[in-house]
C-alpha cells in the first residue's frame, strides 16, 4: 500500500493539474508543433513559419577537384575509360566531345569527369626556296579533350563505339584507353622550384 500511495498521489496531482488547464485553455489538450508557445502576449510568435518547412540538408562547401577512385573492370563492365578527342580545330573538337558527353547521358553511362588536357603547339618550319635557312611557316595547335567514363557495360560497348565512330568528324582523332595513375598525373603542371629543392635534399 505504501508503494502504491505515491502513485495514486501523483495520479491525483496530475489529474488536478490537467483539470485546471483544460478548463481555462481548451486548446492545450493536444500539444503539437502547431501550437504557439507564448508567455505573456497571446500573439507571441504569430508570424513563425520556418518550422513548418521540410528539413533541408545542411549547406556544406563542396570540395572541388576531388580525386575520384579508379573503377576496376568486372566481368560485365569495363573500368574507368578515357575517351580522348584531339585535333587542330578547337570548335570541332569541343563540339565532338560535347556530343559524346550528351550521348553518354542519353544512354545512362556514368561520366566521371570531362576535362581538357593542355594544348600542344607545333611549329611548322619550311625550307626557304633560295638558301638553306628555314623559316616559320605556320603554328598548329593540337587541342585535346577527355571524357572519362566510370563504368561501361560490356553489352552496350559495341553500340556506343559504333555510334561515336560513325559520327566522327573529319580532322579529329579519337582514342579510347584505360585510365591510369600516369594519365591523372599528366594533368598537373611541373613545379621546377619544388623539384630543385627535392634534388638539393637528396644530393
Amino acid at each position, binding site marked *: 500500500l505504501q508503494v502504491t500511495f505515491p502513485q495514486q498521489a501523483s495520479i491525483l496531482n496530475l489529474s488536478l493539474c490537467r483539470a485546471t488547464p483544460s478548463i481555462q485553455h481548451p486548446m492545450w489538450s493536444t500539444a503539437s508543433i502547431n501550437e504557439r508557445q507564448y508567455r505573456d502576449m497571446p500573439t507571441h510568435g504569430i508570424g513563425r513559419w520556418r518550422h513548418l518547412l521540410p528539413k533541408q540538408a545542411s549547406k556544406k562547401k563542396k570540395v572541388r577537384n576531388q580525386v575520384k577512385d579508379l573503377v576496376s*573492370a568486372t566481368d560485365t563492365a569495363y573500368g574507368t575509360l578515357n575517351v580522348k578527342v584531339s585535333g587542330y580545330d578547337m570548335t570541332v573538337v569541343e563540339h565532338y566531345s560535347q556530343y559524346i558527353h550528351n550521348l553518354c547521358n542519353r544512354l545512362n553511362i556514368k561520366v566521371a569527369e570531362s576535362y581538357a588536357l593542355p594544348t600542344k603547339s607545333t611549329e611548322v618550319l619550311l625550307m626557304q626556296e633560295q638558301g638553306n635557312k628555314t623559316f616559320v611557316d605556320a603554328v598548329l595547335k593540337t587541342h585535346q579533350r577527355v571524357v572519362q567514363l566510370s563504368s561501361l557495360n560490356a553489352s552496350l*560497348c559495341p553500340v556506343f563505339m559504333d*555510334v561515336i565512330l560513325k559520327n566522327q568528324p*573529319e580532322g579529329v582523332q579519337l582514342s579510347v584507353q584505360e585510365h591510369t595513375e600516369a594519365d591523372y598525373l599528366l594533368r598537373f603542371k611541373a613545379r621546377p622550384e619544388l623539384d630543385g629543392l627535392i634534388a638539393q635534399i637528396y644530393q
Partner: protein
Amino acid sequence: MAAPCRKMASRSFSRLLCYFSSTAVGSGACRRFSVTPIDRATPLGSTAADRATSPWSLMAAVCLQRLPVISADCSPIEQRFKQMLQQMELEKSLVSDHELRLLEDAEKMSRRQAADYDSDEEDRGDQEIMMTQDLEDTWEQRLKNFHPAPRVRADVDEDLSSAQRCLADSLVLLAEQQVGAEKLWLLPQAAWQEGETLRQTAERALDSVTAAGVKATFLGNAPCGVYKYKLPKAARTEGSVGRKVFFFKAILADGAPGSAPTAPLLWVKKSELQEYLKPAYMTKVDRFILNL
C-alpha cells in the same frame, strides 16, 4: 542457353586500347587503327557434364564495316544554312593580323605616293623584305598548284568488290558461303567449336573468308544480334534442330589486301543489302546495322 553464353559471363574482360583517326582522302581509303589487347584471359573450360545438350548448334558471324572516309554531301537546306552561318560569322568577326598588315601597307603606299612625302619623317622601322601582298600572292600560287583527289569516282563506285567505293557511306562485307545445299550471300560465319569463345569463332570466320592482310578491330565481346533458323525437315536429326547465328561487329582497319580473297566478296551499303540477303535474315541484320 548453351555453353558459350556462360563462358562469356565468367571470363574476365579483355581491355582494349583502340586508336581511331579520321584523315584526309589522300592518305588512303581506311582509317588508321591500332589495337593492343592488354589482358585477354583464356576462357575457363567447362566440363562436358555441365553442359546440357541442346538441339541448336551455334555459329558466329562477323559484321565487318568500313567506315566512311569523307563527310557526306549536304542537302540543299543544309548548304543554304551553312552559307548563312558562314556569312554571319564573317560579318561578326574581327580583322586578323594579316589583314591589319595589309591595311597598314596600303596606307604606307598611299602616303608615299602623296605629293608632300618626306621620307625622313617616316618612322623607319625594320623594312620588311617581303610585302604582305606578295606573301598573299605566293600563297595563292601554292593553292593553285595543289590538286586534291576527287571525292567521288564513278568507276570505283560501280565495282562492288572494292573497299574504296562510296567513300561517303559505311559499307558492310558480304561473302557467298555454302549453307546446306545452296550458296547464299550472307555475313561471313563459322561454326562454333569446343574450347573457344564466340568472338574467336567470329575472328576465325573473318580470317577464312578474307585475305591475310586484312586487319579488323572487334568492337566488343558481346554480340550485337542473333538469328536462328531451323534446318529443312529432311536434314533434321535427333541432335540438331537448327542453328543460331550470333553477330559480332568489327571495324576495318587500314590493311592493304595482299592476296586475292578465298570466296567472292562484296562491299555493300545498307540500302543495297536487300538485294542480296534473304528476307528473314535481312530483318534481323537490319536491326543492328546503323546507317548514320
